Structure formats: structure tokens, C-alpha cells
């Protein structure tokens, strides 16, 4: 990936950025392995909550009541990623965290609103602010793991996880830190959130997530988090780390069009894909697989397909949407899908798109479904698009 451009337009190379740890908590279970097994077997918790998630494994009895679930799942994914990286000796000053969320502590907010209206202002928790703030996840991770470098939160709705990873990778590429944890988490399985998304007709009435299917009728909301440990190549090699993949590029654009609807021509999304290829110094034919945003909403999947076809042409690489299994965890989604993309590269297998039976004839893509498929070229593009018109893309590749 590039750091930027010189005044004369020449690309500036920074440190190479590699992935040395992954973590995920999803409706497939706790752990990245549970996620990938769920994707391959099309298995998930029916209500799209995280099965067997025990916050007391991560927080003391007093603390557990004072950290919103979105921050709990964020920390859980980050701790798994950090532990799997094997990093043991790291200066806090050389360690950053960029961790996103779409919404933050909504369930705490609604619970405390009930306290306010039922018992009065004097009974509202003194922990309200540190529980609902969207940066609570990043802050919990920094406190637990000792990161004193830049610790920041990106909130670009459903693109937040991908944008956070892009920003974290750029931080490592710049040399400001040796290691950054990037990712995103969400847990807003709350009646108020469901009502809002349902009334805007974004949620599936059938309750079935079926990306790119002709009968798709909206997204299915889930909770979850994903995290990657991103490390400069030199730092990873010096400590003999196991390198899982390399971050080859990241890009971000905006539609500047509508607060919720994507552009029908997918132009903002297409531009983002062009820019991530440019950042990675790759051509479309180098890409072996696209891990799509693929929310299962009529508008997203059509616009994303148009954008992919515009950039990659009729020979676009095979596409999968993880959301047939995982549902849509908003700000967690891009990070969870980045974990899935790393594992797709590591294991050379593309998981199928669950829920897809009859592909929409208007979508001219090779969408993997029915069974998994071998990955032919170990370079994966992961897309995320958020309400507000935010587009985010990452390219991950096998380390060579």
C-alpha cells in the first residue's frame, strides 16, 4: 500500500503491512475458527446473536456492568487477535488501535432512557457517557493491551470496520507505530434499533439473508466484532512472527448522493475499487476473489454488482457475501469479513454465499453458492458500504 503522493504525483511507499493476528466473535460462535467453519458449513445462531459469549471471561464483575456489549465484543475480538499474534514485548508508544462501530452503546442508551422516564434524572447511571460513546471499544482495547499510540474510532456506519482497518494499516505503513489493531464491533440487538431499520424497510421481512438472490428482501441484523493485528513487515520478521497475509491496499470514497440509498450506477463504489487497485499497484485480473458487502437488500446488491462489473468487466473474479451466514453486524461487518478474507487466503478456499438459491438475473456476477470453491489467485478484495454514502475497500493478499 502507498502512503500518499509527492507534490509531483509520485507514489510514496511506506512500510509493508502484514497481518499477524485475527479474532472474531460472530453469530457462528466465539473465535475466528468458529466464523470460518460457520461460513463453510453455512451454520449460524438463528437469532444472529453470539452463542456462548461470556463477557465475564474478559471483565471483572463490577466492570462487566459498566461496559456496553458492543465494547465487550470489540475487546473480545481484539484480545483473540492480539494473543494469536504472539506479540509479547511491545512498547505502548509504538502500538495503536483504530476500532470502529456503526452506532456504539445503543442498548445502554435505551435502558438508561427507561430509568430517566421511570425513576427520574437522579437514577441515571454515572457510567452512561463512557458506556455509550462510540470510542468505548477502542478505549477498552487500548487499556487492556497497553496501546499508547494513536487510539481512535471511525464511525462510518456499515463501512466503519473496513475504514478502521484501512486507517490502521496506513498508520503502520507510515512508521508511526510498529503494530496497530484494526477492526470494528457492533451489538445493538435492541427493539429501538430494529424498529428504526424495519420502518425504513432496510430489514428483511422474511428474516432470511440471501445476498444477490432474486427474492432478497433486506438485511438481517446481527451482532459481532472482528479484529486484525497489523504489523510492519520488518517488525514481524524480526520477532519471527507467523505472517497470515499482507495488506496490499485500502481506499475510501463517498457517493455524496443520498443519506441511505447507494447510487444506482454504483459510481462511488466503483471508484473506491479502482483506487484500492491503484493503491495496491494491481490490475483487476490479479484479484482472485471479491468478498462483497452483499447485504441482501435489493438496492445494495444491485448497485454493488453494477460497480463490480464496471471495474472488473465480464471476467470478474468469483464473489461471495459472508452475510448469508453472518447477517449484517453494521460497523462490525467489514472487520469480520476482513478476517474471513485472511482465512480464505490462508486456506485457499472461497466460502459459499448462504441463502442464495436463484441469482437475480440483473446481476451479472459469478457468485459462489451451493458449495465452497478453491481460491485460484491469493488476492482478495473486500468491500463495505455504509449509510451516508461511505465506501471502503481493502485488498489482502498472501505474503510473498
Amino acid at each position: 500500500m502507498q502512503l500518499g503522493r509527492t507534490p509531483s504525483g509520485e507514489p510514496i511507499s511506506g512500510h509493508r503491512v502484514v497481518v499477524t493476528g485475527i479474532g472474531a466473535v460472530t453469530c457462528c460462535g466465539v473465535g475466528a475458527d468458529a466464523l470460518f467453519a460457520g461460513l463453510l458449513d453455512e451454520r449460524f445462531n438463528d437469532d444472529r446473536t453470539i452463542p456462548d459469549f461470556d463477557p465475564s471471561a474478559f471483565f471483572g464483575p463490577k466492570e462487566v456492568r459498566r461496559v456496553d456489549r458492543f465494547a465487550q465484543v470489540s475487546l473480545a475480538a481484539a484480545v483473540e487477535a492480539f494473543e494469536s499474534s504472539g506479540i509479547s514485548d511491545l512498547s505502548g508508544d509504538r502500538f495503536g488501535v483504530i476500532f470502529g462501530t456503526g452506532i456504539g452503546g445503543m442498548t445502554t442508551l435505551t435502558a438508561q432512557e427507561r430509568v430517566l422516564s421511570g425513576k427520574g434524572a437522579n437514577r441515571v447511571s454515572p457510567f452512561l457517557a463512557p458506556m455509550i460513546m462510540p470510542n468505548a471499544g477502542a478505549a477498552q482495547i487500548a487499556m487492556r493491551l497497553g496501546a499508547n499510540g494513536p487510539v481512535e474510532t471511525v464511525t462510518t456506519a456499515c463501512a466503519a470496520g473496513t475504514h478502521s482497518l484501512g486507517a490502521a494499516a496506513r498508520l503502520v505503513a507510515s512508521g508511526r507505530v510498529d503494530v496497530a489493531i484494526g477492526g470494528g464491533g457492533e451489538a445493538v440487538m435492541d427493539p429501538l434499533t430494529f424498529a428504526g431499520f424495519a420502518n425504513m424497510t432496510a430489514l428483511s421481512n422474511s428474516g432470511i439473508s440471501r445476498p444477490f438472490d432474486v427474492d432478497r428482501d433486506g438485511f438481517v441484523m446481527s451482532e459481532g466484532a472482528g479484529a486484525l493485528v497489523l504489523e510492519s513487515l520488518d517488525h514481524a520478521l524480526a520477532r519471527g512472527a507467523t505472517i497470515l497475509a499482507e495488506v496490499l491496499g485500502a481506499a475510501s470514497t463517498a457517493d455524496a448522493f443520498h443519506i441511505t440509498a447507494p447510487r444506482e450506477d454504483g459510481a462511488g463504489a466503483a471508484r473506491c475499487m479502482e483506487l484500492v487497485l491503484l493503491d495496491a499497484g494491481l490490475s483487476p485480473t490479479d484479484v482472485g476473489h471479491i468478498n462483497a458487502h452483499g447485504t441482501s437488500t435489493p438496492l445494495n446488491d444491485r448497485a454493488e454488482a453494477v460497480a463490480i462489473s464496471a471495474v472488473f468487466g465480464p471476467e470478474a473474479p468469483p464473489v461471495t457475501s459472508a452475510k448469508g451466514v453472518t447477517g449484517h453486524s453494521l460497523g462490525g461487518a467489514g472487520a469480520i469479513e476482513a478476517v474471513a478474507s485472511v482465512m480464505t487466503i490462508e486456506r485457499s478456499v472461497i466460502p459459499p454465499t448462504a441463502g442464495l438459491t436463484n441469482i437475480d438475473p440483473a446481476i451479472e456476477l459469478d457468485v459462489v453458492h451451493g458449495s465452497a470453491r478453491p481460491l485460484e489467485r491469493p488476492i482478495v478484495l473486500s468491500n463495505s458500504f455504509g449509510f451516508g454514502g461511505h465506501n471502503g475497500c481493502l485488498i489482502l493478499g498472501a505474503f510473498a
Partner: protein
Amino acid sequence: MADDATFEKFKGCAVEVLQVSPDAIVPEASFADDLDADSLDLVELVMALEEAFDITVEEDEIENVSTVGEAYTLITSKL
């Protein structure tokens, strides 16, 4: 009015909010040093006590409270 039942009720609130052992709730225990309770913990504890005893405690009244005994005296003075 202060008796064993009142102290047990007080202790129940403290154990619930501070997540400490009931045995640790003794009059001489310091919130900061013995019970790992900071100022926000104390605010939360006072809120629980206000609810349990149906009393009102003003913010400035807890400024000088540093031990369990002091908190208990404050609460019982309002009953």
C-alpha cells in the same frame, strides 16, 4: 434508627454495586483503599441506597464520605 436489619440492607446494596465480599463491608473499611471504589462507584452506591431506603442524598453530602461507617451514618441520619 439503626439496627442489624438496616445494616444488612446497607451491606446488600454495597455488595451488589461494588461487587465485593459481604465480609469486607465493615465500618472501618475505606472505599478507596479497601473496596477499590472510586468516586463514580460511590455515586452509584449512593443511588442504590437512595432507592433502597427511599431517601435523598445531596451531592455535597457525600464529598467527605470515605469509609463505610461514614456512609452508614449519613444514610441512617435520614431515616
